[in-house]
């Protein structure tokens, strides 16, 4: 019984975290170009001089 008192808030918090993450992703444009994002990982950014921040931020970084 005391397990429930711990597990239910736990489940709800995890769910809320997921919801929050989704809202963030939506706001920062992660869903704008789903097929493109899958392909961009194959691009070499060397020629462009990857100076501005990590490469992994590239796909969604634009407002």
């Amino acid at each position, binding site marked *: 019984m005391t397990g429930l008192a711990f597990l239910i808030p736990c489940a709800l918090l995890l769910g*809320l975290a997921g*919801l929050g993450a989704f809202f963030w992703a939506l706001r920062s444009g992660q869903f704008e170009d789903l097929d*493109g994002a899958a392909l961009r990982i*194959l691009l070499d950014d060397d020629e*462009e001089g990857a100076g501005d921040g990590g490469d992994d931020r590239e796909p969604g970084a634009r407002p």
Partner: protein
Amino acid sequence: MSEAATAPAPAPAVSLFNVPGMHCAGCIARIERGLRDMPGVLDARVNFTSKRVRVSHREEVDGDSIRAAIRKTGFSAEPFVGESDPAAMLESRRLVRALAVAGFASMNVMLLSVSVWSGADGAMRQLFHFLSGLIALPAVAYAGRPFFTSAWGALRQGRTNMDVPISVGVLMACAISVYETAVDGPNAYFDGAVTLLFFLLAGRFLDSVMRARSHDAISALMRQAGNGAAVILPDGSHVWHRGDQLMPDMLMLVAAGDRLAADGIVESGSSSLDRALITGESRPEPVSVGSRVLAGTINLDGPLTVRIEAVGDDTVIADIARLIEAAGQSKSRYVRVADRAARLYAPAVHGLALLALVGWLLAGAGWHQSILIAVAVLIITCPCALGLAVPVSQVVAAGALMRSGILVKDGSAIERLAEADLVLFDKTGTLTLGRPVPLGPLPLAGDEKAAALALALASRHPLSRALARALEAEGVAPAEVSELAEEPGLGVSGMIGRTPARLGRPAWVGLRVAESGDPDSLVTAFRMDGRPARALAFSDSIRPGAAEAMGLLREAGLPARILSGDRPGAVEAIAGTLGLEALGGLGPGDKVAAIRHLADQGGKVLMVGDGLNDGPALTAAHVSMAPSSASDVGQSAADLLFLGDSLLPVAKAVIAARRTMRIVRQNFALAIAYNILAVPLALMGLVTPLVAALAMSGSSILVVANALRLRSAAR
């Protein structure tokens, strides 16, 4: 002037281009790098999903040069107009957030409900009901807003719509569940209420993705008139006037390459005009003193002095805008399939729920139980499956069409396309490519090709461009050229190494051609010193796949006809080749009249056209398609766009639309069959929260699964 000076850094202009040819990561990189290297371009971003590139650039860089830069990277590009409506985008965003909240709530509430169904009782059940309520009530308050506001709006005007039974059902379910939780009763419908919202929002969201984007053909049209002209004052000096400052009887000077800003009559000079915008005709039209010229056409060869006759709202281009506007008003009366179904459905649902309440009260069941049953009826009959039936099918079909190069621009376009029973084609630019292509192989030696390409690239004349395109397609690289000079109205000359070369009018190049009997072919000539002059003949050719497309349309029971503004002779030649009936020599207004006439006889016309002159007809027709090479106006007026040169997508789209509507009808049948089974159970009071949850999810999943069969609809 002063405005420009006080303004801070000018906002960058943004242009969108359709680039249908991209298909891999390398393509993305090539296009983006190619564009970012171009001076004046601030940023370029490819959206691979929509096969579009978004370029932000300084004002002074024009669309044509960006397009040329994309072409240089090896892709064909067409400017994209009618950017998706920001209001519709915001609406989708709002719905997807509500959907996420409803999804989160329904999953967690369902988790608790399953425990209740599997035997929790007493204090445990009350605790779980209490927790469910704690999750469900805020979620309903947030995710239910789209329905509540719409229902409230309808009720205030004394009408009812689909959202009224939904809102009443959800609110009643919540209210009764709160009561049940308070008195420790067994029947809390929190799970039903949030799951209902989840499915309905899914349907609503998909629908908003397909919602009409603005058909703003008219503002696209008015952008096409030149934005000003140099006016010659009585004392002989020149002053630049903006488009709205021009007045009839002024004299305007139009340099070669400029777009005319007003209608008028040529006072002096001779040149040829590119009238493609107005008539869709690819052939430059020669003009001289006394000729009538129209706003929106481009002066190709030499400077002209034009006495202005009509400006602004009186120009031919503004007439066309008014025709489009008038045609658009009659079209907005179309009622979509889902809305037609909703009109019948909503009163039936209200009636049934009320009947259940009154019936059980009369049978002596007491208020509590009667309300419980009435709520169960409302939840069971709520149009989950019905709300999903149409949007899911259309979204899946639109995705399938997009993968085969057909863009659906309007939410109801697929429905209307499926109803079409007659196809009308424009000729130039629609049945034909709308641009000259070489007649047969070019009679040039290898080094002559390189030289001809170098000269052709220096000119913006339609034939030069056609030659350059053909040579580039063969993989020819331009030769080094010096002393390039363009003689207005004659051609281009330059030095290839030490050899002078000329590309232009046959007589200027030194070639005597007999006035050819075929008025549809165009001849230009090329000569390098010391070699014979070569005649290069061009003509506008029929799109590939045209014959096959006509065959498929005939099989589908859709007769096709040609409706063209071109000379009847030229139209008949093509009509003969394709075996179609044809009408030639029609103005924009005549085309609309022809379509109206057919519509009055009950015909539902699919219009396929591209030019500005087709704008009114595209808007007036029941449904319309345009190639992606169409004018801005054609693109914005049409309901669907097809990419690439082939005409086959027209037939494919019709067949896919019909298949989509077949699936939609199946989905309706499924949803109604489910109701026929479930409603009597609800009326008898046998529907517990468990049954309601199962029935609702089951029917929705069935409908979605059926719609997914459309994934291959456009093959």
